[in-house]
């Protein structure tokens, strides 16, 4: 699971990048990028984002997803 970025809301302030304990969020020029393999869904960034542009990851139900 990895957080999701809502680019419609992101204002590239860089706060989440400074917060991310695993360096999963990076700012390329003014474009926020996520290295999803590094994200452990700690949600520091989700809570702190000043504009609500970060969302928690969707749980991975695997192959059983269809049955839900």
């Amino acid at each position: 699971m990895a957080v999701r970025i809502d680019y419609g809301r992101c204002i590239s302030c860089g706060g989440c990048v400074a917060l991310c304990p695993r360096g999963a969020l990076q700012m390329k020029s003014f474009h926020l990028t996520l290295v999803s393999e590094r994200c452990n869904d700690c949600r520091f960034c989700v809570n702190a984002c000043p504009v609500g542009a970060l969302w928690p990851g969707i749980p991975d139900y695997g192959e059983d997803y269809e049955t839900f």
Partner: protein
Amino acid sequence: MRHFDVLVAGAGPAGSQAARVIAEKGFSVALLEKRQEVGSPVRCAEGVSEKWLLKHTGVEEPWIEAEVRGALLRAPDGTKAVMHYSEKGYILDRARFDRDLAWKAADCGAFLLTRAAVTKVLPYEEFFIVRTDHPLHQEIRATLLILADGIESRLAAQLGVRTTLAPSDIEMCLQYTLEGAPHEEGMIEMAGGNEIAPGGYAWIFPKGGNRANVGLGLLGSRSRAGFNARFYLDRFVAGRFPDASVIRTVAGAVSASEPLEEVCGEGFMIAGDAARLANPLTGAGIGNALESGALAGETAVQALKAGKRDRDSLEPYKQKLMRSIGNTSKKFYRIKEPFVKFTDEDINNMIRIVSKIDPSRVTVAGILEAAFKENKAVLALIRKAFFS
């Protein structure tokens, strides 16, 4: 591949100041900025004390949007206290200010490159190989490196310096520049309270006429999805300036931590927000950035003259920095901890006590002492921080 004596990453106040100091002494320096125009978009509330400008850049007419003589502190219950500054403050046009500082550095001989974000720094024998996303200068060599790449700095991490901030050590800020927002002229206003900005404060900085920077910062650990900076700011603005129009939105994060322990290393120095130099209590960072940039520049010049680049020859930067701003910053950090835990009642009491003091005699230390008069345990902590 071009080779420079020094490469400065980031053309904010810290980077531009460092580049200018180095270029003035005749060494080759590259100043790289990721924005396509230096200074814009702005990420700042734009307040600075006159003493820093006089020390480093002088004061130029076009930079100044308003002069500030004092601060108005507002408690959640409406109690007000006035504080007159001993030195003048300015609200800057940061876009113009940053641009002029970078252009001055270029004028002194620095090689300014915009729209060039540094993506990777690789230590290599006696120099660094710096990769950028600029199409013409994808690789640059530099003997020394000054990292002034701001709050989201990841370059220091590439060199093994731990820069991650805990959620309790960062203020998430959002600011609107409002037109049609009547406010007290010549005064900045700061409003506290857990309903207004948990673990932070809201500010109103005059920008001349009816224009003002209205913003707030809240502690990263007190922000929740849905109850974030935008939620609190929208509520604050709707309450205070229902008819104002938002002419600019500025977002940014400010570190509220101690300065980095490792501000220098083998061949590199870290300056400005990247070194977590903003004041942990007030969030003021322009002056500290200018100071750290100038010190980094001077140290680089000394090291280049001696032909050295090892850690020991850059160590004077750390010592000077600690002496001029680092120690003050550490004191403020120690008192930040109890401050962010204040209840609304604590803030009301604090401002009531301050409002009884003569405004010209109110200082930050005085406010803090008054603030903690009721709470003896915290007072002891403040005493230790400030007066030991």
